[in-house]
């Protein structure tokens, strides 16, 4: 039980009356129960969060988004399936490939391993929040210039991770880039372009 409490506390989820103490982990084990409508779930004041849908407000790319999700829904699925923010991709779904990378309070995070309810109260930035086709950030420009993409399915995750990396490591060397982007995977083999792109962007800064 202590582990569950710790998870809840760390995530800062106790702001509603029915969300006292434990919840996330308990709810996740309760998924065999049929989905309960929101009102019914909210009415149960037993300290357990869910298993029905809960209202959550996520701050994504500077905008507050209200949505209802079950506690078991990951941040990635909430973004993609509920909010139609599809830049972050679902590939491995278990924190290996980095295609789902988003920034949470500026730090790169695999959104497939964070529950949406845990992300409440945090600043979430997806690749859509880093730049647009009309106004690209330095990393995005460098990715295009050095052709650091082929099919492009890993690209949003890489761009997001790389943006966080160059903010932390201005003037990064190629060797630092190799170490810094080790948390993302590409299948088409675009790393050669990425090494050039990210070190170029690091030099230019202002990601």
């Amino acid at each position, binding site marked *: 039980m202590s582990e569950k409490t710790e998870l809840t506390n760390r995530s800062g989820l106790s702001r509603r009356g029915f969300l006292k103490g434990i919840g996330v982990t308990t709810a996740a084990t309760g998924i065999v129960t049929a989905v309960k409508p929101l009102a019914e779930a909210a009415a149960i004041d037993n300290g357990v969060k869910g298993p029905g849908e809960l209202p959550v407000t996520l701050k994504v790319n500077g905008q507050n988004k209200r949505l209802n999700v079950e506690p078991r829904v990951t941040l990635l699925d909430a973004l993609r399936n509920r909010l*139609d923010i599809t830049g972050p991709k679902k590939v491995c779904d278990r924190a290996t490939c980095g295609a789902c990378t988003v920034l949470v309070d500026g730090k790169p995070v695999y959104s497939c391993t964070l529950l949406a309810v845990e992300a409440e109260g945090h600043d979430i930035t*997806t690749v859509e929040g880093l730049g647009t086709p009309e106004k690209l950030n330095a990393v995005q420009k460098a990715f295009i210039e050095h052709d650091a993409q*082929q099919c*492009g399915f890993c690209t*949003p995750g890489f761009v997001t991770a790389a943006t966080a990396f160059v903010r932390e490591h201005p003037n990064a060397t190629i060797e630092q880039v190799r170490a810094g982007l080790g948390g993302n995977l590409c299948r088409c083999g675009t790393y050669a372009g990425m090494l050039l792109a990210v070190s170029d962007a690091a030099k230019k800064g202002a990601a």
Partner: protein
Amino acid sequence: MAKVDWPAADKRTHIGKRISRIDGAAKTTGAAKYSYDINHPQMLWAKLVTSPHAKAEIGDIDTSAAEALPGVKAVWKQTFKEGDSKTAQYAGQIVAAVAAETEEIATEAARLVKVQYTEQEHQVVDSDPALSKDRPNERAVGNVEQAFADGDSITMSGIYGLPVITHCCLEPHGQVTEVKDGELYVWPSTQNVSRYTDRLGDAVGIPQNKIHVDCQHMGGGFGSKFNFDKWGEIGALLSKQSGRPVKLMLDRDLELATAGNRPSAYAKVKVGAKKDGTVTAVDAEVWGTGGNGGYNPPPVPYVFTKIPNTKVVGKGIRTNRGGQRAWRAPNHPQGCLITMSALADCAAALKMDELDFFLKNVTQTDRPKVYEEELKIAADLIGYKQKAHLRGQGGGAGPVKRGLGIAIHTWGGLGHPSECEITINQDGSVVTKLGSQDLGVGNRTAINIVVADTLGLPLNAVQVEIGKNSYPPSGGSGGSTTIGGVSVSSRAAATEALNKLCAAVAMRLNTQADNLEARDGSIRQIDKTENKVSWKDACAALGPNPIVARGKNVPAESRAAKLIDQGVGGAQIADVSVDIETGIVTINEMVAVQDVGLIISLKTAESQVYGSLIMGITSALFEECVYDKKTGRMLNADMEFYRLAGIKDIGTLKVHMMTGAGYDERGVIGIGEPPVISPGAAISNAVANACGVRVPYLPLTPDRVLAALQKGEGIV
């Protein structure tokens, strides 16, 4: 009238230049919508129920509990007609599917489907040729026994192989489907837009001409995404049943275990060679699995097809694994690994330098001059002369040994049938349409380059629309045939459109249409270039009807006209380090020299070669579908244990394109397959050169390296 040909080098404005891909901004910002990203109002999520057994007779499929779950809207289950086999042939074979309001409900509902299975004995092992029950495939030329018996020759025997690997497309197979008013709309992840619907209509009871395909971006195919597949059919049936759009994308474990699968190949090889290094004979027994289907043994000897005495026996092993799918350069990486390893071992047995040995034998290939030139360039690029040593003689006293390895390869190319339609509107806008697809190779960009170059316009003055089967049909992207197909059809359509425009403005410029050319945003007189009209003004003079022109690629005609060609060579050299205490192999450097004919889009073509090296490094060092003999299941159907190379694993890569005079005249040739063939062989040879023993099978994992060192001649 301008005819369809490629412009001379000094007339090219975009062709062959380093141009950034035109969809780069969409892809780097998340704006590009892949099939997986398509969301529709009221859309349902589908999940599949699959056999957990590698071989089992499927009994009753009870979906009642799933149907009773709130939120479930449609259910499909496998039915069997008289005479159908009821046996699941691999773990992961689809038996049922559910569609529900959310992905979570669908996942839960799929778990509630109860299926009765009667397990049968399965077979997933492919390592022993004695397991083959099919009739062997035999080919023989000359007399190998006689050649081996020659007193002036030496013989060398070795064993080599590569396991089944899986495509691991980052965007899994699948699609969004909507059946509405008797029409079927599908957004599939496919490499075959125009012919995706083949047979789909019959399968789901909707006429072929009422199926609308749209695939703007797709997240990798590599040969595995040509057909609509079972899930394409199920998605349509679930949508028909529910009246709602349905998204059905494979979960990662199913993607890896069932939607990929490049056949394995293992071989016992005996090579005979004269003491000067000339190879005289190759005798090989080759075996492997393509899953439950037939097996086509790889070409051995590969590239060195003129070796006078060869005998090859191929044996297929049927296994209860997911079916084989085409993988970039089908069978070539297998043939290359087996052949190049055996030849390098032969060079080592003769105590000959590997490069000298390959150069000695290029006369036994179809293009000796090309390979000789490419091998020499590759050797220069990697500093071969400074670094080379005989097998096992490098690396000094420490545990880390360094070595070089060589491989050469070939591929066809040509171009698939393709049609293109170009519209020039009165406002000067140009719209190009093809039922083609961009797998990430830069197809959109290449089409844009060809049309803009032909019409004398900047790239952004031409709109390129692909990805729909309502556009003029273009072939599937396989076998490096796309660029040959689309470059000719778009060049032909653009030329035809330009001829019509020139005809329309000839009188105004007081000259003949065939004395006009398009250049720098104007139509001008060829022999008096100051007599011109701007593109905009020329188009404004068009009547109410826009110019609509069609062009097509007819492969044989285009080849005869030297617009496209087939048959390329490439050479690669790897420089690796092997830690003989830990068994870890590190790539220091790799060079690829590639013959590719006329290059349309240089930047994206180079990217494909870099990508091929990296994909080859991945399969050489990490990739293998590991199957459990007892349960018959794939043990590593996830991305932690089915490893892909990361950015730190690739070393330094160099790419050299054989282009310009002597190559350009051949016309356009595709590049998707050739450079992905050699890396495994070159890396394996480099490891052997470094540590003194052959590690027989890919991937070259630490355990295999250490086992080979322990067993082999070892290193001093």
